[in-house]
């Protein structure tokens, strides 16, 4: 238990699972595919738990460099580097480095832990799917890339993981690729991500140009060593990194791919688009916090983007009828909260919310998947209802999740959301405005989540011919585990969490001169959530005809929300169509057909023409051949004879002509 943590095993086991299931999966029996698919995340989880145990067994979780440790153990941050450098050039040196510090340890626990639970869930959910082995291989591929991203010690290795999870997301969103909507959704996700990645790449270039290195620790050291970095440069770098994070974490304006990504299987939505991949942006900002700390403008932008996204997505979620779409917009909204936290330099609060969000959002998605499974694939909430008697385990676990996300005490999200709102409130004048936005969003969150809760589980079943049945145990067990985590996940408290994470993200305590401010703000948040609950109760349980009347009374506003503010249509008209026209007409016709085709046609024409001209020479006329032969022989003779003007003629000719 006390040996080195063997960090390289953590990505490698899922990679092995991916290769085995991907190459041999179709030929292996189902139980073997399941075993391989589950062993990979379980193995990674075991390594992570081992590392946690060793790291936690030292006195004081924070780093203590002066202490002596039992031989063979390690302390954080623990760096593992591959002996062969990846890039070894005069201007750029990049290694394959894995770093385990407090931040990456927390993320790894979430990724492998929740990941393992979702793998177990998938065994039951995807039982009847013909692409079973392919599904598990893609899930393991995702785990490989995600753990690489988390463990990365420099920006380039993180970028590898970054792109890789985008790829895995594409593969999994378009898992049922025969459906055109799924294939289109996969493409959309990848392309929108790519736009953000472009910003990320520019950020990497700027980092390299300004710091000469891409390793996080070295950049932090260089930054700390000299206080005279121009904030303009740092702001530029941070804004570029923010662009990448916004793409990956579905913030304004690059969020449009996440609702469409619900075309994938529900466990995929739970794992990738709720718990882990979309949080990579938040993780990246926390990882590079030393840059953002020195660029206040960029930090402010992060906060504004986060808050705007949070309220924007919450309003859209009010009018959605697909259960997974509501959860998707909820995810976007909660990610906005995390960005808001980063923006007010409360990185620990952001990570805290990341952890709790992973628990309850995964639970929400898995429970929704259970509902969909029970309803035989139906996802429209208007056709559900009254399911709480038929699906008891699902109902109770989903209730826990709904109350958690609303922010009720003493469930997990209360602590994390409260930490974020408190940090925003004490962050100056603008912070109070952000706090208010966050509060409104909390009310909306409670409202649309309870709306979902009521529409799905209460009332009468609105579809006559459905036979809902409870899910198998492989699907119920993860729900229960996640529910337990949602209940007690926040009890560690933000203070202890912050002090634990301090070596990695810095300590930015939110202090206020007003006593008990945190308590007051917490009570306000719970009251707001209660109000949302009561509104939902009125409109969706007691007077269920009122929502339709309201929608009829305000048709324009309702249509605006239901159609997601027409953002997709806007993008389509303003960005996609011109690009399409450009590719088709300018690149396709002008460049490809006219210029390149013209050049090819010209070359062919020259060849043809010269061929036609030279063809005349081969007339088949013997006499002309004879004549040309004679002419050639005469020319040769002439050349030999008169060649002495230019070169040395053969000695015999010289002797003959000159006469020796």
């Amino acid at each position, binding site marked *: 238990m006390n040996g080195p943590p063997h960090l390289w095993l953590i990505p490698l086991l899922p990679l092995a699972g991916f290769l085995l299931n991907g190459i041999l999966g179709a030929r292996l029996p189902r139980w073997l595919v399941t075993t391989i698919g589950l062993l990979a995340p379980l193995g990674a989880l075991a390594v992570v738990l081992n590392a946690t145990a060793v790291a936690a067994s030292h006195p004081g979780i924070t780093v203590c460099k002066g202490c002596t440790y039992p031989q063979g153990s390690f302390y954080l941050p623990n760096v593992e580097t591959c002996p062969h450098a990846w890039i070894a050039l005069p201007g750029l040196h990049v290694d394959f480095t894995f770093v385990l510090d407090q931040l990456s340890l927390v993320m790894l626990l979430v990724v492998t832990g929740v990941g393992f639970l979702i793998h177990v869930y998938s065994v039951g959910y995807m039982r009847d799917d013909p692409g079973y082995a392919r599904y598990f291989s893609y899930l393991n591929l995702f785990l490989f890339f995600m753990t690489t991203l988390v463990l990365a010690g420099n920006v380039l290795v993180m970028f590898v993981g970054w792109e890789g999870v985008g790829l895995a997301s594409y593969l999994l969103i378009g898992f049922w690729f025969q459906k055109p909507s799924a294939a289109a959704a996969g493409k959309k996700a990848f392309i929108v991500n790519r736009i953000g990645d472009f910003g990320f790449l520019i950020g990497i270039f700027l980092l390299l140009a300004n710091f000469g290195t891409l390793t996080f620790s070295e950049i932090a050291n260089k930054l700390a060593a000299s206080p005279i970095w121009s904030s303009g440069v740092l702001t530029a770098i941070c804004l570029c990194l923010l662009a990448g994070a916004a793409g990956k974490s579905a913030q304004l304006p690059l969020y449009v791919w996440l609702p469409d990504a619900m075309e994938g299987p529900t466990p995929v939505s739970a794992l990738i688009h709720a718990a882990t991949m979309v949080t990579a942006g938040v993780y990246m900002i926390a990882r590079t916090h030393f840059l953002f700390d020195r660029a206040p403008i960029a930090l402010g932008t992060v906060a504004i983007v986060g808050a705007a996204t949070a309220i924007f997505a919450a309003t859209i979620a009010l009018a959605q009828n697909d259960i997974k779409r509501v959860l998707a917009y909820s995810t976007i909204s909660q990610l906005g909260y995390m960005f808001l936290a980063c923006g007010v330099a409360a990185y620990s609060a952001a990570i805290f919310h990341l952890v709790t969000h992973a628990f309850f959002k995964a639970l929400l998605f898995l429970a929704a998947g259970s509902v969909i499974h029970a309803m035989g694939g139906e996802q429209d909430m208007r056709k559900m209802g009254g399911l709480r008697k038929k699906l008891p385990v699902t109902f109770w676990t989903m209730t826990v999740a709904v109350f958690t996300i609303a922010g009720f005490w003493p469930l997990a999200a209360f602590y994390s959301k409260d930490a974020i709102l408190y940090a925003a409130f004490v962050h100056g004048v603008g912070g109070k405005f952000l706090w208010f936005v966050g509060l409104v969003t909390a009310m909306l969150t409670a409202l649309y989540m309870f709306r979902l809760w009521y529409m799905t589980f209460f009332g009468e079943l609105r579809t006559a011919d459905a036979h809902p049945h409870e899910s198998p145990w492989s699907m119920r067990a993860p729900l229960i585990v996640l529910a337990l985590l949602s209940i007690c996940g926040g009890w560690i408290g933000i203070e202890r969490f912050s002090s634990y994470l301090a070596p990695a993200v810095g300590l930015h305590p939110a202090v206020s001169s007003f006593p008990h401010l945190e308590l007051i703000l917490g009570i306000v948040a719970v009251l707001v959530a209660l109000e949302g609950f009561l509104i939902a109760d009125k409109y969706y349980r007691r007077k269920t005809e009122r929502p339709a009347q309201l929608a009829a009374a305000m048709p324009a506003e309702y249509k605006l929300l239901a159609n997601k503010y027409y953002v997709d249509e806007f993008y389509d008209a303003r960005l996609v169509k011109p690009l399409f026209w450009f590719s088709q007409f300018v690149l396709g016709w002008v460049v490809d057909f006219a210029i390149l085709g013209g050049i090819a046609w010209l070359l062919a024409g020259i060849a043809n023409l010269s061929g036609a001209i030279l063809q005349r020479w081969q007339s088949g006329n013997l006499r002309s051949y004879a004549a040309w032969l*004679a*002419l050639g022989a*005469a020319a040769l003779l002439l050349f030999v004879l008169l060649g002495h003007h230019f070169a040395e003629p053969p000695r015999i000719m010289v002797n*003959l002509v000159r006469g*020796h």
Partner: protein
Amino acid sequence: MHLILFFLFAGFCLAGAINLLWQTHPINSALSLIVVMTSLAVLYLLLGAEFLAIAQIIVYAGAVMVLFTFVVMLLNAGREERTLGSRAAARVGFPAVVVLLAVLATIILRAQGLASAHLGQGLTSDPNSSNLVLLSQVLFHELLLPFELTSVLILIAILGAVAIARREGSEVGGSERTAEK
């Protein structure tokens, strides 16, 4: 003596060559060429190449020209006609050849150090060896390989000639059928 013989047989050569060009029927040309070959054989004798003279008569005049005559008679092509093409060729060809001849003559006449051919003097004055002995010494020692290869070449030529000129059954049947239509 040498001079007379030379002039006589050189004259025969030239006459035969000119006749070859003058005649319209190929058989006449073939016979003129035989005259040229034979005269050349005599000229070789005058230059001390006895073996070559005999080889010339046997191979060239006796085999090759007979082959030519045989083919002419087989194909029975008939006289040539004057056409536009042949007139144009004559107009271009004659001056070109005159130029060629002028160049060659210039080179030959400007050459110095050429000996005179003496009748009866061969390549060697050794009484024990003759032209034939010299020839065979070189041919069967140094140049044995080319000698053998030449025989292979002739074999290939025979095979080739047989393969090309032989009538193939389907071809004949096809051409006969089309001729009937």
